[in-house]
């Protein structure tokens, strides 16, 4: 029998010869992706996964894993196998994305007029 500093382990009367049996694959629960919403109206943000046999249990676990501390308004869980993703082999489709600053609204010609308008409002409100 295993004697441990931890009295719970000693009480469990675990035989030293006992072999630990690895779980069969079928014994593993599926995973659910967890999305956390801080305040009502804000976006749900992906925070991680939980293992669970069904959505109800997944929600119960999501609460303790990801909403134990800090503010929470709502949680979503989605079965991981229902998430469809791009292939990392295709990552090159994103390579020029960061160069396309001309798409940022900050570079629109109209920004000059918006800035001028804001300046005018500021002066008027003084």
């Amino acid at each position: 029998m295993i004697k441990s500093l931890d009295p719970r382990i000693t009480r469990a009367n675990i035989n030293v010869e006992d072999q630990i049996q690895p779980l069969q694959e079928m014994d593993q629960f599926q995973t659910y992706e967890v999305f956390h919403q801080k305040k009502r109206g804000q976006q749900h943000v992906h925070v991680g996964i939980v293992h669970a046999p069904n959505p109800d249990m997944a929600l119960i676990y999501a609460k303790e894993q990801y909403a134990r501390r800090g503010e929470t308004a709502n949680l979503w869980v989605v079965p991981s196998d229902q998430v469809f993703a791009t292939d990392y082999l295709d990552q090159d489709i994103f390579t020029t994305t960061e160069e396309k600053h001309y798409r940022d609204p900050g570079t629109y010609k109209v920004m000059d007029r918006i800035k001028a308008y804001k300046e005018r409002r500021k002066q008027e409100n003084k």
Partner: protein
Amino acid sequence: MDFFNEDHIAAAKDLLYKMADDQLIIGHRNSEWTGLGPLLEEDIAFSSMAQDKIGQSEHLYELLHQLGESDPDNVAFTRNADQFHCCHLVEWPIGEYDFSLIRHFLFDFAEAVRFDMLANSSYEDLAKIARKYRGEIKYHTMHANTWVQQLATGSDESKSRMQNALNETWNLALGIFEEGKYEDTLKTAGIFEGEAVLKRRWMDSVIPLLEKYGLNVPDESTWAPVYGGRQGFHTGHLQPLLSEMTEVYAIDPTADW
């Protein structure tokens, strides 16, 4: 203080002691699963709820302190078993997970109803605590309910384990509602409507759920509530638990961590 006389204070203390002791002892018992739970997520959830219970008990011990009892650490760590007012249900060893789950289900629904009743108590400090922890306890009952439903409607083995655990636990759970000598005082002072009302409301909430999941509540002719705990008579399991729980405190009462 919103009490009128000594009798009300004595009645409030009696109520607070049994509530806080129940929470402390079941919190400690459930924490014994930490690191040994059936799966990681459950281990974290069950441990977290155990901590919640101990936190709730601390809050109630603080109320007792306000009513003139010793400070929370002293009250929690220096009494012997016969000075505790917890029911026998909470002091039994954790057993297998089926027993711990059914105990969690039966106890937490009773606690949820009790806190619900106390939310309107004339003892405003206690009513505040009852309202504060409502959400926390609601999660505890959701967790218990989801598990019991899952296992009671699962495989043949999980069904029979749930049924056997329920059979073994039922009379212990009825012991939660052991009446004390202050039932009338609590009622007339508007502090608490009493154990009998609590018991009826608890049955109205748990029995339909258990039946919905196909579990049989033991026949009423076999009901034999296990009393004694509220008066300081306990099983042999409580003192070893207390010795283990207070081991560090006993070595150094001033230790801080």
